[in-house]
């Protein structure tokens, strides 16, 4: 059982260039088997100069990045629980920072008012859970959110639990929060 993270908390997840830098980022939420509401998760790969190549935004429509260091897998664990997994190799030379966010889809038939989202980081080499983070998103008033960021600090990879909900769309939220340029 990994550490339970709260908003604003930072955690070391691995040493840079360590052989055990393969992770699984698992995001789960319940949608009560409805198609009137859903959450789509995104991992954006930031380069050194705070730029994000659009081809390096990983989600359901772009399931792996150019050097295949991040892969997206979408599956249902049971009738109501939805599980989205990103397999990440942090040893890729192109990764300077990862921004983990989500966008909310709701049709006018949506009856849900909030969503409980859980994020887990699992070290695939060591088969250990690094941390768990739980957040609640008000899906009536919000359209997107940023869960956290994975970034380099000195000789370690760290995770910062941001937990930010936004009424704007995801890319505008990421641009505002991180001052990044999409190209």
């Amino acid at each position, binding site marked *: 059982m990994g550490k339970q993270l709260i908003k604003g908390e930072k955690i070391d997840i691995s040493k840079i260039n360590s052989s055990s830098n393969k992770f699984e980022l698992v995001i789960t939420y319940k949608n009560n088997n409805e198609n009137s509401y859903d959450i789509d998760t995104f991992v954006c790969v930031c380069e050194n100069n705070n730029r994000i190549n659009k081809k390096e935004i990983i989600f359901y429509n772009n399931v792996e990045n150019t050097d295949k260091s991040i892969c997206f897998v979408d599956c249902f664990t049971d009738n109501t629980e939805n599980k989205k997994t990103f397999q990440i190799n942090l040893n890729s030379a192109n990764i300077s920072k990862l921004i983990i966010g989500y966008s909310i889809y709701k*049709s006018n038939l949506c009856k849900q008012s909030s969503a409980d989202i859980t994020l887990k980081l699992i070290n695939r080499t060591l088969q250990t859970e690094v941390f768990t983070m739980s957040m609640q998103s008000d899906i009536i008033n919000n359209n997107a959110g940023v869960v956290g960021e994975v970034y380099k600090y000195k000789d370690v990879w760290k995770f910062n639990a941001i937990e930010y909900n936004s009424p704007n*769309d995801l890319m505008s939220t990421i641009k505002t929060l991180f001052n990044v340029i999409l190209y």
Partner: protein
Amino acid sequence: MDKKECLNLINQHFELQSCIASLKNPDLKLKSHTFFYNNLFKAVKEIKIIRVKSKNPKDDIKFDIYYVSDEFEGLYHGYFRIKDESDSASRIFKTVSKMCTDLIEYMYYVYQNSELLKIYLISLDIQNAIEQCNTKDVDGVFEKIKKNIYSEIAECDQTELECSILDRWFNRKYIYNFIMFNSKCSEIVKMFLLNLLSPKYSNNICMINQNSIIKNYIYVSSSSIYFNGNHELNVFSILDSAVSLEFILFVKFDFNFEGGVNIGKTVDKR
């Protein structure tokens, strides 16, 4: 010919009859989102509002305009559906979308894309126009497309195929996300999305992701749509053929992430 001239020409040679008592003197300037009766018709799924027919009865061009009271954020607030009611009308609309939100834009689009209407508006003789029009049989092309799609599916590795296909249960969500994340769609793309959302095609459409191994698909970006890199092949005809020949059409969306509320605004430092 510009939009206005085109509309004048159509008004000159076609007459419009209202199909509902409260809609007096209908014209082709209707837009579905500003349509005066859209709130009134909310409870009705679909209603025939206008019958359009050629002023020359010999030509027998007849089509009806229906108002469909459906909503889709970012795309339409009600829309119009065109239903051909005569053989010559069916030939005119064969290669174009039969759904739209703005009738002027639509009629101009039909004029630009239907060779038959273009020739008819000059010759004013539908038989002559049909004879002049390039009437090469395209049905064989669609049969070939169906064959190619099915042989490609048969050759695909099952796991790779499963990784390529998006859950059809969420087709509306994929279209919504495409509109929200991308820059403003061109009129033709909007019209295509409108068709994808209609129940008519829902059983014949399957979205695939960008990394998909499937090569026979309709590519959709904010500005263009085409099948297999072929810009000449009409995508609306392919949609119709998917229904009539009963095959699955794969659709791939290209996200440019240029949409959203903060586009063009200065970003603040954290």
